[in-house]
């Protein structure tokens, strides 16, 4: 189980604003996703989570750093070109907002079978229609939806269609960029269960980006916490929730509401004041597999 499928090393990305200003969206981020694992990436909005996803999918070209996907350096143009076909099939991205990631002028049938048509794959179940039907069934949708347009579906259905589209290529790595945050809570639960189910059935690895900690706790194996473009803590999910070390993580965890009103009343919100001192230094291992960003002076 320890085979590494995605290895991100020292990823740094700056966005230029005008001629002189630039924003450090990612600063020296390193992590690895193992085979068959769900790796969660959490953080407040603007912390650079989506930028990681976009760099991994080659949508953005990072300023520096390396990304290895199944041993292929995807940021090396030569190597990327050589393995483009394979990468495009084995990595799939699920967007946050399914309303805009599905073309409103295509039917569900066309959307789901599009990747296969692009890659000229012979559908395993005979025809494109049969394959699309199967994938819809797999994500829990009825085949009567095949001829509907995305605008006619509800948010949860749309997100399932997006997942079905990603699954048609039998990906080994699924990058889910906040796939549930635009959904209602009840629908969120269904989608999360779908993801958990996917891992069991397909044995695919998932890079799961979210800002909802309770979801991450339920779904993920390991979690990385991001703040201001930096990875501040990286640990297996149980360890992170049991003994958070970085002040930002502590603050983040203390913001989770507790479903018990008596405990909820006693909950203390910790504050994190973005002290630059706490956001510098490098990741150090504090216990087994538990890394924390720690300043140099301590």
């Amino acid at each position, binding site marked *: 189980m320890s085979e590494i499928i995605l290895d991100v090393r020292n990823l740094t990305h700056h*966005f230029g*604003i*005008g001629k002189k200003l630039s*924003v450090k969206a990612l600063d020296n981020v390193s992590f690895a996703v193992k085979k068959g694992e769900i790796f969660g990436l959490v953080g407040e909005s603007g912390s650079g989570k989506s930028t990681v996803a976009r760099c991994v999918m080659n949508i953005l070209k990072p300023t520096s750093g390396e990304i290895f996907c199944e041993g292929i350096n995807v940021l090396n143009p030569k190597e990327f070109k050589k393995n483009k076909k394979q990468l495009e099939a084995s990595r799939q991205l699920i967007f946050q907002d399914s309303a805009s990631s599905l073309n409103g002028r295509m039917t569900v049938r066309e959307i789901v079978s599009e990747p296969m048509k692009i890659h000229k794959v012979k559908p395993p179940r005979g025809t494109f229609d049969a394959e699309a039907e199967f994938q819809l069934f797999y994500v829990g949708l009825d085949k009567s939806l095949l001829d509907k347009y995305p605008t006619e579906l509800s948010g949860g259905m749309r997100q399932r269609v997006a997942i079905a589209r990603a699954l048609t290529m039998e990906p080994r790595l699924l990058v889910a960029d906040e796939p549930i945050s635009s959904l209602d809570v009840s629908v969120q639960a269904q989608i999360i269960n779908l993801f958990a189910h996917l891992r069991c059935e397909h044995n695919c690895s998932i890079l799961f980006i979210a800002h909802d900690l309770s979801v991450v706790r339920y779904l993920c194996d390991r979690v990385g916490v991001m703040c201001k473009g930096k990875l501040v803590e990286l640990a297996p999910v149980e360890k992170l929730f049991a003994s958070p070390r970085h002040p930002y993580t502590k603050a983040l965890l203390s913001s989770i509401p507790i479903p018990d009103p008596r405990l909820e009343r006693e909950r203390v919100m910790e504050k994190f004041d973005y002290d630059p001192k706490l956001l510098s230094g490098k990741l150090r291992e504090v216990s087994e597999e538990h890394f924390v960003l720690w300043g140099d002076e301590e």
Partner: protein
Amino acid sequence: MIRENPFVYYGKKLFVFLLSLFILSLAVFFISRLAPGDPLVSYYGDRVEKMSVEEREWAENKLGLNESLPVQYGRWAKNALCGDFGISYKYKMEASEVIGERIGNTLVLGGIGFLLTFVLALGLGILCAYYEDKWLDKLLCRVGTITSCIPEFWLSLVLILIFSVNLNLLPGSGAYSIGNKDDFGDRMLHLVLPLAVVVINHLWYYAYMVRNKLLEEVRAEYVLLGKAKGLSKRKIIFRHCLRNIMPSYLSLMAISVPHIMGGTYIIETVFSYPGIGKLATESARYKDYNLLMLICLISGAVVILCNIIAQIINERIDPRMRESRHIEEGEVAENGK
């Protein structure tokens, strides 16, 4: 945004102008070399046929026809800068001289037509916007749509048929009656019909533009404020709305110079009005390339100049445009994030 130094700004515009002119001349030169026909013929006319082989060679050498195209272009450009554009095959004189004789007529027709269109369109547009959706507006819109659909040449023909042939009121061709070259009144009389065609043909397009821009403006919030303050409808339109649409109208008019110019070319042909438009169609018909090239160059230069003027109006005179450029730059930064 820091405002640029005016010298730098106008310097840049001048550079763009010269660069475009250069590209234009390149294009015109190479296209004319692609054209069928012997360039020698276009330079020396019928004499070529009587030339011996040696004479031919000498002539080709002199014109540099046996050299590569870029060298030829260099030579041609050098001559052109000195004002030598070759000889017009049909008129047997310098191309620049032929054009010099005619350009005044075109400028009079095009210039007066342009000014009339400009003023009338503004007035008509305001009138339509003022009486929005009333019968006057509706009537003008209908009539305007119909007139804008009539091709220039047909309108000219019909006007000639009515006013010149049947009613015998106005002259239907030429710029002056024979022997009356210096009679101002006679010239004006000859201008009436061509001018009418120019104006009728272009008027509605611009009037409609003014009308729509004004109607957009009238829906702005500040109009409501003006109304609340107790300003009259007329005052709001003339003092506030009009001021806001003027810069874009001006730049539109600057861009539209070539369209009106292109229109006069056809009108000149129909009315056999001795301007460069008639010259252009004639020289194309007789394969008089030197003349055609020069006409293309002149028209192109005017067009480029007008576009740059429109840009300057947009960027310098309208304060809102400056603002919006500022915002645009901000947006780029946003998108980058």
